[in-house]
C-alpha cells in the first residue's frame, strides 16, 4: 500500500483540484458518506463497523465497582481506544498516541451518561485505518452500548452492603439506559476553509487543512464539537456544517437502530431456540443438530466474510473458505477427508434482511464453482457426513448467479431457508 503519510506533490494537487471541482477521488460527492455496515456480534455488547475501508470493533464490559462518594447513584463510564498496529504501519503499540486519546475523549464526551452502579468499560479497537476513525468508532461504540446487557444485581435488604449479581441464566440481564444516540460527523476543510467534505478518507485527511467533528443527535441537539487546530473557518461555514450534520445524523441513527433491532429479534429467537435445542441434544445424533444450525447460517456465513472484501479494488482477490465440522476418527475405517467446501456457520450471525442490505460482492460465482467440486468430492464418507453433504448441496443449489442480480428473489429464498 505504500506509506500514505508521505504523499507526493502530484497526489496532493490532484486531490485538491478534484475537490475544488466537487469531486472526490473515490467518486463520492462532497456530502456523501461511504457505505456503512454494522455487524453485531453474537455476544451482547460487541460490534464491528465498516465505513468504507475503515474497520473498527467495539466491545463493552461492565464490572461492579464502588461509585464515587459524591455521586452514589452513578457509575462510571470509561473509554479505552487503542490504535492497533494492525490498522496502520505508523501506529505503535504502547502508550496511545494523541489521536487515539482524542478519539477516546470525543466519544466519551458525547456519551457521558450512565445510570448504573457498574463501571462500564468500552474498548475500541481500530483494525483498519481508512480515514475518519472518529465517526466509525463512534458508531461502533453506540451499537455496542445499545446491545449491551449488564447482569442484574440486587442489594440485600438487611445491611445494604451486600450486592448479589445474578447470572444471566436466572435473571434476564438489563440493557443500559441510553437517552439519546449522539452521532459524530466529521468534516474536512480544504482551500483555506472554503470547501468542506464529509467523511474524509485517509488520503483526504492528509491533504486537508483542518478537521472538525460535530456530535449531534436526532433532536438536533449538539452534544460535542471538536475542532483542534488546522485552518481557520468562518462561523457561517461552521453553521452550515451543523445543518448538514443534523441531516446525516438522522440517517446514521436509523442505521444503528435497525441493526440493534435485528440483533434484539435474533436474541429473543435464540432464547426460545435454546430451550428446544436442549431437548433434541439428548435424543439426536450430534451431527444432525449441528447441521440444522449450519443450514440456517450457511448463506449468511458466506455473506459475513465477503463483507470484508473490498468492492472497489478488482486486483485484490480475497479468499473466502469455510470448512465443515470435521467428523473424522483416525482409528476407524470410515475416515472421511471432508474438510472441503461445505458452507458452515460463521461466528457472528446475521439475519437475512440485514444481509440483504450489505454491499453485493463477487461471492456467488464462487459458490457455483465450489458446488461442482463438492459433488466430485463425494466419495465414501461417513454416513452422517453423507447426510450433511446432500442437505448442504441442496440448499446451495438454490442460490445461482441470477440471485446476485435479483435481490428480491434471493431474499425470498433466504426467508424460506430460515423458516
Amino acid at each position, binding site marked *: *500500500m505504500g506509506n500514505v503519510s508521505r504523499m507526493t506533490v502530484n497526489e496532493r494537487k490532484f486531490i485538491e483540484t478534484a475537490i475544488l471541482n466537487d469531486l472526490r477521488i473515490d467518486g463520492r460527492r462532497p456530502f456523501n458518506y461511504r457505505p456503512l455496515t454494522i455487524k453485531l*456480534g*453474537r455476544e451482547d455488547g*460487541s460490534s464491528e463497523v465498516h465505513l468504507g*475501508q475503515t*474497520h473498527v*470493533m467495539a*466491545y463493552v464490559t461492565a464490572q461492579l465497582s464502588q461509585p464515587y462518594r459524591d455521586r452514589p447513584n452513578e457509575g462510571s463510564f470509561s473509554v479505552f481506544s*487503542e490504535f*492497533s*498496529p*494492525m*490498522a*496502520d*504501519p505508523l501506529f505503535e*503499540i504502547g502508550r496511545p498516541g494523541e489521536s487515539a486519546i482524542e478519539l477516546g475523549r470525543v466519544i466519551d464526551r458525547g456519551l457521558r451518561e450512565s445510570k448504573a452502579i457498574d463501571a462500564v*468499560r468500552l*474498548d475500541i*479497537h481500530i*483494525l*483498519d*485505518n*481508512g480515514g475518519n476513525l472518529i465517526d466509525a468508532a463512534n458508531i461502533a461504540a453506540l451499537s455496542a452500548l445499545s446491545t449491551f446487557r449488564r447482569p442484574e444485581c440486587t442489594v440485600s435488604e438487611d445491611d445494604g452492603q451486600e450486592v448479589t449479581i445474578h447470572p444471566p441464566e436466572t435473571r434476564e440481564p438489563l440493557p443500559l439506559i441510553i437517552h439519546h444516540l449522539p452521532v459524530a460527523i466529521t468534516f474536512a476543510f480544504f482551500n483555506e476553509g472554503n470547501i468542506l467534505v464529509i467523511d474524509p478518507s485517509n488520503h483526504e485527511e492528509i491533504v486537508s487543512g483542518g478537521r472538525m467533528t460535530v456530535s449531534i443527535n436526532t433532536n438536533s441537539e449538539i452534544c460535542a464539537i471538536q475542532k483542534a487546530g488546522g485552518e481557520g473557518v468562518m462561523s457561517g461555514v461552521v453553521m452550515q456544517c451543523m445543518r448538514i450534520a443534523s441531516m446525516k445524523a438522522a440517517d446514521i441513527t436509523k442505521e444503528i437502530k435497525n441493526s440493534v433491532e435485528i440483533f434484539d429479534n435474533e436474541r429473543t429467537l435464540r432464547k426460545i431456540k435454546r430451550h428446544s435445542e436442549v431437548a433434541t441434544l439428548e435424543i*439426536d445424533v*450430534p451431527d444432525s*443438530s*449441528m447441521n440444522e444450525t*449450519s443450514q440456517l447460517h450457511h448463506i449468511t*456465513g458466506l455473506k459475513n*466474510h465477503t463483507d*470484508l*472484501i473490498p468492492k472497489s479494488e478488482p486486483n485484490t*482477490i*480475497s*479468499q473466502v*473458505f*469455510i*470448512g*465443515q*465440522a*470435521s*467428523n*473424522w*476418527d*483416525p*482409528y*476407524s*475405517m*470410515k475416515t472421511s*477427508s471432508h*474438510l*472441503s*467446501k461445505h458452507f*458452515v*456457520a460463521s*461466528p*457472528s450471525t446475521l439475519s437475512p434482511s440485514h444481509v440483504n442490505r450489505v454491499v453485493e460482492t463477487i461471492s456467488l460465482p*464462487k459458490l457455483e464453482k*465450489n458446488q461442482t467440486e463438492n459433488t466430485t468430492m463425494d466419495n*465414501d464418507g461417513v454416513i452422517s457426513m453423507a447426510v450433511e453433504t446432500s442437505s448442504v448441496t441442496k440448499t446451495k443449489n438454490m442460490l445461482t448467479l441470477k440471485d446476485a442480480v435479483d435481490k428480491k428473489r434471493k431474499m425470498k429464498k433466504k426467508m424460506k431457508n430460515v423458516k
Partner: protein
Amino acid sequence: MTHELVMVEEGDDKRVDGRTPNQMRPLSCSRNVLHRAHGSARWSQGETSVLASVYGPKSGTRKGENPEKASIEVIWKPRTGQIGKTEKEYEMILKGTLQNIIILTENPNTTTSVTLQVMSDDGSLLSCGINAACAALLDAGVQLKQLAIAICCGLTNDGTVLLDPSKIEETKVRAFACFAITNSPLSALSEVTPGSDKGKSLENGIVTSITYGSMQESDFFHCLERGRAATSRISEFLRKNLKS
C-alpha cells in the same frame, strides 16, 4: 485403541455442544480482509475468532535482536482489558513458533510485525491465533519453510481426549495441551485417498507444545497423536483454501 473408540460410540462422552471427542468445530478462514495491512487473515473455529495482520519487512531490528536474521514482532491484543501476562506469554509462544517456520535469512536486519486481535473467545484461543498468524503470513507472501498448524486438546478426568475444546470444556478438563505441528509441502503434493495414513509417512515435527495441568505421559502422547492427525486435516483445509 479400538476399545476406546467403542466406548465413545456408546454415547457416554457426548460433549456439551453435541460433538464427539474427535470432532472439531466448523473452521473458516478468510484472507485479505484488511486494506492497509500487507497480509491479513481471519481464522475462526466455532465461536472463537482471531484476526491476524502482517506488515512486511520494515528496515531495522530492535536492540537485542540478531541483525543477521529477520526478526519477528508479535503483538497480541485481547478483547478487553490491559495487556497482561497472559498476552505476553501468547506473544512469546507465537514468536517462537513463527521464528521456526519463516525463512529468516531471506531479509536480514528487518522486522516483520504480526498483530493478532481476538475477535471472540470461546476456547482454543491460542491454536486459533497460531493458525490465523500462519494464514496471514501466507497472505502477505512471507516465505515460509513449512506451515505450523495448531490444535488444542483437553484431557478429561476419565482420560478422554477432547479436540478443540470450547470455553466451558476448558474449565472442566483436568489438563490442557496446545500443539503446533509443522506440515511440509510434500503432504499437499501426494495423492490422497481417504482413509490412508498419509500423516505417518511425511515429516511432522512439533514446533510448539504447551501444556497446562498435570497428565500422565501416556495421556500426553495420546493427545499428541490425536493432535497430529487433526493438524494434517486442518492443513489440508488451509491448502485447499489457498488454491481456490
